[in-house]
């Protein structure tokens, strides 16, 4: 039974909230249940943002959980805040261009993804979040890449549909990085 509880956290502007939403849309497209819960309020003013995304086969009971199956972490403060809240056996996928000190927990999988570097290579720094998402989905295919692409197609206004290919590329780059990182 699928019930994946994910925390995504980083600086505001790193695309943390939209990464969660994209994942949510994809889950919805695939007929799964989903809940997406942002941190809100002045916390965001401090420059950090995070969201909890839960993807499940069955009804999602609590949309807010304090321990997670997966952490997708984009900056150092988030690493410090959330590393201890990953369940044993869970994973952390992190942005290794920004985060210098990663978790050294042994009971979870910790995967360094240099997403910003790779995004720069694709000449679009904004795509770093999709690279991380791709990496995560490679490890835990809670939704398919096709699902993500279908979701993006529905969510993005027509005029942005030219960005679909680069998004797919980013997802694939992420998957590739994950395969390497393992």
């Amino acid at each position, binding site marked *: 039974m699928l019930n994946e509880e994910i925390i995504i956290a980083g600086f505001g502007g790193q695309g943390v909230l939209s990464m969660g*939403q994209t994942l*949510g*849309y994809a889950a*919805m*497209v695939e007929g799964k*249940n*989903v*809940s*997406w*819960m*942002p941190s*809100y*309020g*002045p916390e965001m003013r401090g420059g950090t943002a995070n969201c909890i995304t839960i993807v499940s086969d069955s*009804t*999602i*009971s*609590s*949309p*807010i*959980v*304090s*321990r997670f199956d997966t952490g997708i972490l984009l900056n150092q403060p988030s690493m410090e805040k959330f590393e201890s809240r990953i369940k044993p056996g869970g994973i952390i996928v992190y942005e290794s261009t920004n985060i210098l000190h990663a978790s050294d927990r042994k009971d979870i999988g910790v995967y360094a993804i240099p997403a910003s570097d790779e995004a720069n290579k694709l000449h679009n720094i904004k795509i770093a979040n999709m690279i991380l998402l791709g990496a995560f989905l490679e490890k835990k295919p809670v939704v398919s890449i096709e699902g993500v692409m279908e979701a993006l197609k*529905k*969510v993005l206004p027509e005029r942005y549909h030219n960005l679909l290919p680069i998004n797919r590329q980013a997802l694939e780059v992420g998957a590739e990085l994950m395969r390497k990182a393992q």
Partner: protein
Amino acid sequence: MELKEDIRLMKGNEAMAEAAIQAGMDAYFGYPITPQSEVLEYLTREVPNRTGIALQAESEVAAINMVYGAAGAGARVWTSSSSPGWSLMQEGVSYIAAAELPCLLVNVNRGGPGLGTIQPSQGDYFQATKGGGHGDYHLLVLAPNSVQEMADFVFLGFELAEKYRTPVMMLSDGAIGQMMEKVTFHKREIVKSAKPWATTGKTEDRERNIITTLFIQPEKMEIVNIHLNAKYEEIKKNEVRYEEIETKDAEYLLVAYGLSARISHKVVILAREKGIKLGLLRPITLWPYPSDVLFKLADQVKGMMTVELNAGQMVEDVRLAVNGKVKVGHYGRMGGIIPSPEEVEENLEKFIKTL
């Protein structure tokens, strides 16, 4: 944002706003406050291309009195706010109840007292159900526990409000307002009931209509009070709503609404995994309260525990309902803290040991 059928991934606040438009709202008056500002934002974005009025008032006090005016004029009208804003609206709410004006009032509850915090809370249960305003009145209170219900209860709320000429409150919380979930909008036929009492201009075929809450002579006032109470009794008879989860064979019962009920549902699963026969009673209407079903369940279970995001408010209604038949405990977190299912389960076990 539309997907096949009309299924969307939306925030609770947005779902509510969308539902209101689909429910044929005539007007919304509101004032920004976290965690529900998305409502006004959604509406000011949508209504210019669709239908209705969405006006940012200068304060919550103004907003609730705009609702009073519009409802009195026969409009399908609503407002929303969060805890401190609702405290400011209490005079207006009491007036609206007294004048028997149908409207929808939404409190996306955050942590208090005072300015408090903007995180989810259920600390306004008393205010919503016992009457935070002055005088004897009641709101019909609906407690959604999902984004879907945030939408559905808008339709239901308008309907009940107009059926009984009474203000209906939806008591939600910051988590349900802020979170995104799937929500399906069904095609519905919107029926608006006639409002012959509304102040739309005194045509020659009728006497003037007066919306007032002033009954200076005690004898008249008491008649109004008695009339209101009779209506409340009617609502109690017809409109109690609740959900029973795994109560059939339950030996212990959790009672929880809204977000707490979501958490408690998971607790039921956890407890049953451990062999504890736990059930959950989720009140959907907080007023009228599902007292009868609790009274009956009290014969079956060994103990009940409420799970609330407050210091223990609804627990009083459960105690009143079971009238001493079983012990009723309370587990609560406050200030925007949301307990994990595991934590609640642990405390349930502690409670069970005291029985």
